[in-house]
């Protein structure tokens, strides 16, 4: 993170942010459910400038087999960035950042997945970042949670993720690229609708009071995102027609 005083970017104009948002406002979000034909569940999400697609395969057999757990399904999560998703071409394949993000994202979802229903199997979650604009891990988790529901994976609850940040000594919701690059702190969280936090990371500089504010703000953002996720799922599944069931009396 680069010091504020090294840049002459001003983050606020007439009390609004560079893209015209209030400090506690999310970027526009679009969610589409079931966008991939081969996957068991899938979801495409746009959060501001982020475009992320998630797919779920499973529960299915574990390969390699020594990873099997006899009492539960294992969950795998692969966060991957397309080489063209960022300004400077990213070398394809996993790097240290994506290993870490895959780990914490998996741990953000695993607490709500009823893994004990599927011993010796695996639930694979694949997340591809097609276009990145700050907040790709939270966008990925939001898409992955919807894709898990779309795949019919039994879950205790939904997971929604959102970040808060600090720019020019002000706490802001859902930082965009400029605010993330030149801001003073970034705090992504993921949580269940009733406020159990499953992902929490932070970098930058926050006083304990600012930290409280940022957590509260990110939680409010996550609650709003939950409603959008829910709406997208209801929209898709309410359109489906129930398979016609013919009941014939035995003669």
């Amino acid at each position, binding site marked *: 993170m*680069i010091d504020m005083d090294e840049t002459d970017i001003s983050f606020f104009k007439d009390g609004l942010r560079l893209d015209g948002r209030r400090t506690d406002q999310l970027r526009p979000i679009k969610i589409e459910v079931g966008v991939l034909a081969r996957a068991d569940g899938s979801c495409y999400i746009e959060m501001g400038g982020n475009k992320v697609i998630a797919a779920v395969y499973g529960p299915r057999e574990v390969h390699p087999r020594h990873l099997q757990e006899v009492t539960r399904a294992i969950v795998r999560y692969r966060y991957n960035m397309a080489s063209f998703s960022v300004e400077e071409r990213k070398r394809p394949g996993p790097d240290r950042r994506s290993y870490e993000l895959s780990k914490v994202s998996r741990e953000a979802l695993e607490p709500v997945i009823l893994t004990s229903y599927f011993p010796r199997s695996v639930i694979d979650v694949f997340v591809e970042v097609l276009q990145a604009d700050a907040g790709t891990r939270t966008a990925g988790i939001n898409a992955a949670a919807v894709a898990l529901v779309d795949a019919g994976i039994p879950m205790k609850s939904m997971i929604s993720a959102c970040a808060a940040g600090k720019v020019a000594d002000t706490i802001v919701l859902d930082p965009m690229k400029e605010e993330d690059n030149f801001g003073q702190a970034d705090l992504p969280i993921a949580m269940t609708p009733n*406020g159990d936090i499953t992902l929490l990371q932070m970098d930058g500089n926050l006083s304990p009071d600012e930290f409280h504010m940022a957590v509260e703000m990110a939680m409010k953002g996550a609650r709003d995102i939950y409603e959008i996720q829910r709406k997208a799922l209801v929209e898709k599944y309410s359109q489906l027609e129930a398979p016609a069931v013919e009941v014939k009396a035995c003669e």
Partner: protein
Amino acid sequence: MSSVISEIRKDFIYNLILKGERADGRNFDQYREISIERDVIKKAEGSALVKLGSSQVLVGIKMQPGEPFPDSPNRGVIITNAELVPLASPTFEPGPPNEIGIELARVVDRGVRESKAVDLEALCIVPGKQVWIIFIDVHILDDCGNILDAASLGAIAALLTTKVPASKFGLGDDFLLPVKDIPIATTAIEFNDVLMFDPDVDEETIANTKLTVITTANGSICGMQKSGTGVLKPEQIYRIVDIACEKAKEIREKFLEA
């Protein structure tokens, strides 16, 4: 993922927690004994051997001139690596770092970087062309729990002893690495709404949620990482942050501000 622990031992620790106790008699917010030995490796530019209870972590710093990143042409570069070598635990395997090792290195790096502990501008040799590169290499020797706090402590302790080897590269006289802050990582686990700091290896195994909080000398937070497949309530997080700030202050004053 974690070490083998018998059901009986798990049960024993669990029952102790219900009584408000820990297996080694510590309070829930009490650290094991800490010792830091500095400059243990003469070939390194800086080094520290940290013992946290029985956990042992060796951190070595090597420095060499190199190219800066294009987006920070006037700043030195920090590269942090961690090796979970197989001699340190029955669960560590040889080979390239796995996600646990990568996470460890990245959280140690976050503490040093985000606290702005090292004055990176002072490490510019020729703007845009040549800067000092600091390699922070964390070697876990014995994993008896909470190696992250030990590694973070080792990193800053080693940086505090680091001499920039300028003469070796014909770049003037050697000088002490300019260190401006002392970030301290404190880790707690949550189990049955009990928060335990500095978990030992058994405690780490029974709890499935861990939160690391890194604080700077002026008491602000510069890094956090939740790890594990459990959940935390906001109130639990705030409680951990409060205690973490206190503990970090104690550790900083006792061991590093000499």
